[in-house]
């Protein structure tokens, strides 16, 4: 039954989108409904496709869901979750402590997780050199201002 979750998600998305579409403010110039024709067509189209997808999956409903198996194998879950956590830390630090140091921490953290603790020297060197080189090339060579 898990199989049916995705098609249901799309069906619900299309219905919510259609409701929002018909709820749009009317235009004061020209055809009052002009802004909603195109979204309405897309919404109906997604609804139809969602229903077809539902029946496609319905036929396979007894088959096990294999698609997400890779996510929980080996160290994949650790990698993905730690990357996401590091991304949030990076987002938090980026404008507070500046590009250079936050990037060193972010990249260093990622390398320690992905590349392993054994290669600590390589990880530290890469994160310091890479952060400095990108900072230099963006802010000095390409004139892109970074915090």
């Amino acid at each position: 039954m898990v199989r049916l979750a995705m098609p249901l998600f799309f069906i619900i998305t299309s219905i919510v989108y259609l409701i929002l579409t018909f709820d749009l403010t009317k235009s004061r110039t020209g055809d009052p409904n002009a802004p909603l024709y195109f979204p309405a067509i897309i919404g109906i189209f997604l609804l139809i496709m969602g229903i077809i997808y539902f029946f496609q999956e319905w036929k396979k409903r007894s088959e096990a869901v294999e698609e997400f198996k890779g996510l929980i194998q080996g160290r994949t879950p650790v990698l993905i979750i730690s990357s996401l956590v590091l991304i949030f830390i990076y987002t938090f630090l980026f404008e507070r402590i500046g590009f250079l140091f936050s990037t060193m921490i972010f990249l260093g953290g990622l390398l320690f997780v992905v590349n392993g603790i054994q290669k600590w020297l390589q990880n530290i060197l890469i994160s310091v050199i890479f952060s400095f080189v990108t900072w230099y090339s963006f802010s000095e060579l390409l004139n892109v201002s970074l915090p």
Partner: protein
Amino acid sequence: MGVDIQNFIEGLMTALHPMNILWVLIGGFLGTVVGMLPGLGPATAVAVLIPITFGMDPTSALVLMAAIYYGAMYGGSRSSILINTPGDGSAIAATFDGYPMTRNGQAGQALTISAIASLIGGIFAIIGFILLAKPLAAFALKFGPAEYFLLFLFTLSAIVSLSRGKMVKGFIAMAIGLMLSTVGIDLQTGVHRFTFDIPQLSEGIDFLVVIIGVYAVGEVLYNYLNLDRLKNKNKLGKKWITKDQWKRSKWPIIRNGPIGFLIGVLPGAGGSIASMLSYTTERQISKEPERFGKGAIEGVAAPESSNNAASVGSFIPLLTMGVPGSGTTAVILGAVIMLGLRPGPLLFEESPEMVWTLVNSMFIGNIILVIINILLISVLVKILNTPPRVLYPLILVLAFIGTYTLSYSVIDFYILVIFGIIGLLMKLLDFPIAPLILALIVGSDMEQNFRKSVVAHDHIMNVLLASPVTITLSILTILSISYPFIMSWVQNRKSKQADAA
């Protein structure tokens, strides 16, 4: 004849400008490196490297992006041949005989023939470009809103129907992309649509953030799944090909360059279809089809010639009509719009020097890439040996830096992560990504043209029948959607006949 000699020579001069040659060199090299990474293809390469183009003049930016694109095409074949892991669809065919050649100890020769084939295919395509682009642009000048609307519709339906066996998923991805494109202030009436009173949404969802999220963050997260399985311990063997090998490859290369080019010009098709078609055709017409799949050099040469030609060909709809034909060209279109350029027929009238600079730089770039790829094979192999465990984190960091430079706001980081996760889920659930990206980028234009054409022609049916071009495009759209059904019907019939016999 569409060639404008004076503009051509001016373009050649600009392309030969040391700065532009340097960009071609940098772009080609960086593209090759990213393209070589297992699981990452040209779309990711361009997406991650977009920020480099900021602050550049548009011509150099276009030259650089094109160099990254075909650099990544060259690089993609490297990982196909050496470790049997294609970076994207267009490099799949290179694994069929490229990897067996590697296992036979002929990796060096496989890489060399792939580089030579790509160069020759590319040159065919550049000649094709020179002949075809301007007439096509002149033709597209007559296009009105109805023609453009149907052209977008056809491109989208073609790209969906070519994602084999997953049409419904493709259409869903397309619909989501179009939905995302409707977020923001409506350009014609000023009505806020789906903005939920969030000020950042009133200007719409920045498609470059979505592109980087899906193609860079999503792809890296997806590649975590195979991170520890990738090993590359293959000997290169001899680098130069033998006379016999050249004899075998010569005609397949020459035949498949033009084929790849023409497929590349078609919206929606592109490298994957071109290289597959070339491979199967060569196998069918070969006198020794049994050699294919076991390390036949012509099985590497044919698809490589064709997919590089297709990547050059795909610039034609992009530049002449502003319609991207593939995921990668959609990404390039997104970046080019950012730079304030509007690709389309007028580009040839207003800035011909830019177009011809690009064409000439593609020519120079292809030659440079062959030199990089043949002379520096051992250096490139060393880079490929750099564990992906180091390179994936770097790509992730580049994705964030790139996103920041788009709007100087960390709020986009959240959007980036959301689309990274969406990209990961799409990969896991086997949803094609190109229709989403393409729809998001052309969605707004498509809607504007749709509304203008309905106003002009009173009724949607009249839009479809407005001119010979719209009628042709309507028929092509219907054909492209029904094509997979017709094909499976034909195959069913064939297998039934075979069973009966």
